[in-house]
């Protein structure tokens, strides 16, 4: 880029606002990044009330965003307890957002070349053995909107959908090293070139395309799983073998 173009870019895009990085998220309920930078007075109340220490105060390496709240998804994701939107004194976090499904922090995208499940699938097809392949499914299991935000394609390949709120739990828990196979692209990232690496490989399903029958089928399983408690009566599953009721020697 030539100098005049650089200058034009600098002056037309306010350098103080709209600075994005992958896996840097605003707390839940945040208004669009430009509005957020106008409204946020850096009072740190959201940081204070966060019971999981997820929200952190941005330091110098975030340039002029220093002092503003950030969730660093790789270190500690947002667990969507929704305590912060209501304490914001300038409504930089919209207090109307109370349901975790309404949150829009970003979108998770999966890098298919790093994800263990994808490697497993490819190797199984080709019949190779690299030692990397693993049936991990951590992101699918950790997702708070299970079977809504991340669905399993062909029962093995995790795919993110449009319902993803971008809480980042999948990124925090993703076991690949040193780079995470699943990353959050913050909401409203303008410069897709910066996110290009992930944008080329991502695969986000529109919500309508999802097979509704399949969701319902999963829902029943999830409901059943949720009802399992370690107290009270045993859940009734069907087994094709006899369960031993008593163990000898035990009272």
């Amino acid at each position, binding site marked *: 880029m030539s100098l005049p173009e650089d200058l034009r870019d600098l002056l037309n895009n*306010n350098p*103080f*606002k709209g600075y994005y990085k992958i896996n840097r998220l605003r707390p839940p309920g945040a208004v669009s990044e430009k*509005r957020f*930078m*106008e*409204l*946020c*007075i*850096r*009072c*740190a*109340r959201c*940081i*204070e*009330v966060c*019971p999981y*220490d997820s929200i*952190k*105060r*941005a*330091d*110098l390496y975030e340039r*002029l965003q*220093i*002092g503003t709240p950030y969730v660093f998804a790789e270190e500690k994701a947002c667990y969507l307890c929704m305590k912060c939107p209501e*304490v914001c*004194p*300038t*409504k930089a976090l919209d207090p109307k957002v109370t349901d975790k499904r309404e949150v829009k922090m970003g979108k998770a995208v999966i890098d298919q070349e790093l994800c263990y499940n994808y490697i497993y699938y490819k190797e199984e097809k080709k019949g190779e053995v690299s030692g990397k392949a693993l049936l991990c499914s951590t992101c699918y299991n950790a997702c708070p909107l299970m079977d809504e935000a991340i669905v399993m394609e062909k029962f093995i390949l995790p795919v993110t959908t449009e319902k993803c709120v971008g809480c980042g739990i999948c990124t925090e828990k993703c076991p690949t090293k040193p780079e995470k196979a699943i990353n959050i692209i913050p909401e409203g990232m303008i410069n897709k070139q910066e996110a290009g690496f992930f944008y080329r490989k991502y695969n986000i399903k529109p919500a309508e395309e999802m097979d509704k029958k399949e969701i319902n089928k999963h829902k029943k399983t999830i409901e059943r799983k949720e009802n399992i408690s370690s107290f009270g009566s045993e859940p009734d599953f069907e087994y094709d073998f006899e369960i031993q009721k008593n163990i000898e020697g035990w009272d």
Partner: protein
Amino acid sequence: MKISFYRRIVQLVVMIGIFMIPLLNILEIYFIKGTFYSIDVGDVAMADPLAVFQSVITSETINTVMLISVIIPLLLAMFFGRVWCSWFCPYHFLVEILQKLRNLLKLKSIKPEYSESLVNRSNRIRLLFLLIGLFITGIAGIPLLNLISAPGIISSQALVLVKFHYFTFEIVFILFLLIMEFFFFYFFWCRLLCPTGIFLSLIDRKKAMKVTKIQPECSMCKSCIKSCPMVINPMNEGNNPLCHNCGICIDSCPDNKKKTHSGLNSIEL
């Protein structure tokens, strides 16, 4: 009892408070939450009027939460003057400690000589600094002056320290200011440049409580001028925007010839 005694108690409580509030919040007691940019006590919301004002001019919106939260600080400033600075601000407290330390070490005084032109010059510098600051804030479109708001930074750094056990870069700014205060300039940040203080003194132009000389026979010992941290003449400049009603002049007056006079009631001291 001297005014300074009560003032020290309040300052100490505030100083302990900025560490206690995040501690209580970690224990999930959310009765008091926030920093000196904006704080909630129970359901009473208070916010730094300058922070909210910047937020209003940059975002071009105003909402009820913002309006309600500045009521108490504004009323406080209108009735009691800039008491926020002298009685509550942790930065002012730290600078006072540093100046006490200088006295203990018997270092040469760095306090500038009082003159009327100095007071006028100070007031001009303050106003200009705030206007330029607000202008740059408007251009940048983000509340930039919050980055140099000393009480806000100190309390939020206390929060970061208690919660995450580290400091962020903002503490460097405070340390820089404190070093400058200790070695070179006497109360320069509070006196000349602190945007929060300047904004509050714009509000308190007609404060109800101010220092006045009530006895015409004054020995003119000038001990009040010598003791004043804001380098003004408390005998006839009680209404000056620089005065923050700290009460040091009243304590230092050998004849106790002045009293604090408020529009509502007068307090004998």
